[in-house]
């Protein structure tokens, strides 16, 4: 098992190295250097620069040193936690990133805390008896909830709960400090899709287990149905959903962009979006790196979890 984990770890490191190389190469292109110049000197300033002046500016910033020299330098900076400076927000990227990641983590934790128990329970209930009325109702609900994109969910929830019923505020900018009520809409929006997805996966896994021979044997042995489900079926049926939950982190990092922009919540996704629109190069670079880092680590955790939970893999 250790060998398997070590191999996955090596693979992850290789992926991370490649990603940093790609990211650095993209942001090292002429286009982005020019954008960096625009954000520092202003668009008018850059258009007034002659080619020689521009080269001089590159020289001063140390931007025309050989590619690999600067790559190694950049990796060194990143590993010391120095991610550069945000021109738009006039702050160190690392402090900005830390603060925004914390806000997004609050969102993600709230989503996971509600999503995990609810979707596992619904998925198991649906998968227990494939084709039953309960199964069909839950499955159809899950298809519908995964079919409505976040942007539409956000709109529909805002219109009904905030504009129509006036229960909660429509925007979540949290200008006067943290407000729990402003967290409801973004969390609900993320939840609705997520629950549907995990329910479908749990249901499929449960339904597969229920057709296996050892469940049939347990039922025929005359064990009470509750006991068959709780003690025999759940153990195997929950392996896949548990590992899936780690992978949700990757997905949340992606979906959080739309939700945070729509509700103006000051999290990681909105920071990335603002930086992309404004041309805040170093923020985009750092945010992408962190996003990939989180995704890769969550994948590793999911793999390790799968190996730990599933003895059939462990002893291969």
């Amino acid at each position, binding site marked *: 098992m250790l060998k398997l984990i070590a191999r996955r770890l090596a*693979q992850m490191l*290789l*992926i991370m190295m*490649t*990603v940093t190389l*790609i990211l650095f190469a*993209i942001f090292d*292109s002429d*286009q*982005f250097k020019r954008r960096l110049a625009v954000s520092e000197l202003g668009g008018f300033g850059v258009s007034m620069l002659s080619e020689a002046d521009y080269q001089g500016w590159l020289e001063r910033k140390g931007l025309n040193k050989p590619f690999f020299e600067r790559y190694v330098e950049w990796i060194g900076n990143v590993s010391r936690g120095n991610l550069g400076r945000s021109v738009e927000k006039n702050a160190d990227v690392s402090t900005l990133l830390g603060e925004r990641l914390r806000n997004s983590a609050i969102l993600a934790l709230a989503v996971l805390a509600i999503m995990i128990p609810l979707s596992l329970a619904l998925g198991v209930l649906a998968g227990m008896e494939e084709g039953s009325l309960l199964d069909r109702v839950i499955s159809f609900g899950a*298809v*519908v909830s*995964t*079919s*409505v*994109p*976040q*942007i*539409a969910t956000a*709109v*529909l929830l*805002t*219109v009904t709960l905030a*504009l*129509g019923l006036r229960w909660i505020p*429509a925007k979540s900018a949290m200008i006067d400090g943290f407000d729990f009520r402003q967290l409801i809409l973004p969390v609900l929006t993320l939840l609705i899709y997520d629950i549907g997805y995990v329910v479908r996966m749990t249901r499929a896994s449960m339904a597969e287990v229920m057709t296996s021979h050892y469940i049939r044997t347990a039922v025929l042995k005359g064990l009470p149905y509750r006991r068959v489900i709780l003690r025999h079926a759940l153990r195997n049926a929950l392996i896949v959903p548990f590992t899936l939950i780690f992978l949700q982190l*990757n*997905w949340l*990092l*992606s*979906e959080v*962009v*739309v939700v945070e*922009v*729509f509700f103006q919540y000051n999290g990681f*996704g909105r920071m*990335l*979006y603002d930086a*992309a*629109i404004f041309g805040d190069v170093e923020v*985009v670079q750092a*945010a*992408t790196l962190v*996003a*990939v880092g989180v*995704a*890769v680590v969550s*994948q590793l955790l999911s793999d390790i979890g799968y190996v730990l939970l599933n003895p059939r893999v462990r002893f291969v």
Partner: protein
Amino acid sequence: MSTIQPNSVWPSRPTLGGLSAFQSLILLIVLIYLPLVAYVMFANQLGSARSYMLLPAIPAVVILYAMSLRNWRESPIALIGATLVFFWLMMAVAAPYLPLLDPNKPFAPYAAPGSIKNGVTFLLGADMRGRDVLSRTIWGCQRVLVWGITATSIAYIVGAAFGLIAGYLGGWWDEIVSFVSNVLMSFPVMVLFILILNYLGQSGFNIVVAVTISSAPAIMRIVRGLTLDAKTRDYIHAAQTRGEHPVWIMIVEILPNVRGPLIVDACLRLGYTTVAITTLTFLGLGLQPPDPDWGLMIKEASSAALVWKFSYMLIIPAIAVSTLILGFNLMADGIREMSLKD
């Protein structure tokens, strides 16, 4: 050549005068999809042909819908899905011939749904600039469908090609292709989109590139798995013994035989792409204004009219995009259900 597939979704009995269902399907797609692409992407080069270009597509949509009703009659879920998808497809091809107001022309700002201003009835109201919401919704569907289908098919061509190579040739090919796809898949999708569109600039064609880069790895994985399975079958060994070229084996022998799961996945992926395009336009990173688009309608309304009284501007595009995606997903579910039953 063996193309017998036990769980085939398309029964190959003749439908349109001797043509098999699959051939007539291809013919109909050519009649609908290519004119739509030409209509939306190459508007300026078409000249006067543009005004009647989509006419043949209208009966084609009707025939295609009738065919799907007949082939999928055993699965009510697939039928509901097909109805939703074909409704929007019909709207897309019929938009130029429906009695609609110009989607980009201001008439009566903030006209409520159903109200009559200057002798014109606004069934779904008008937005903050006075443009007819009904007309914008219907025209918007055209752009979403054309770019969505184009992006998905190109992603499929790229993904399937690499999947076949990785699965059939194996060895170093497999290692390299799998590693590249692992690297791409470790980016959260939206982060990858923002990165690519920030690098390449914002246009419809770059959306196609971004969708291809982000979904080709997943498609490649599926095709690779199916190819690995098919490679061990007797008909492939027979083809190899006959001395057929590897490219021929991959495209003619393997691909048609693994199409079942791919059709289901393609339906789902069309849904994802539609979500991606709408979301990107909402973020202002995708298709550019002023042409109507659902994501754009939500973006404009959410900044200009976030009040209960004007919420129809937000709800209508939201429902439109949800029904289209629901249609794709139900269709995928129904087809999967039917293929498992046989």
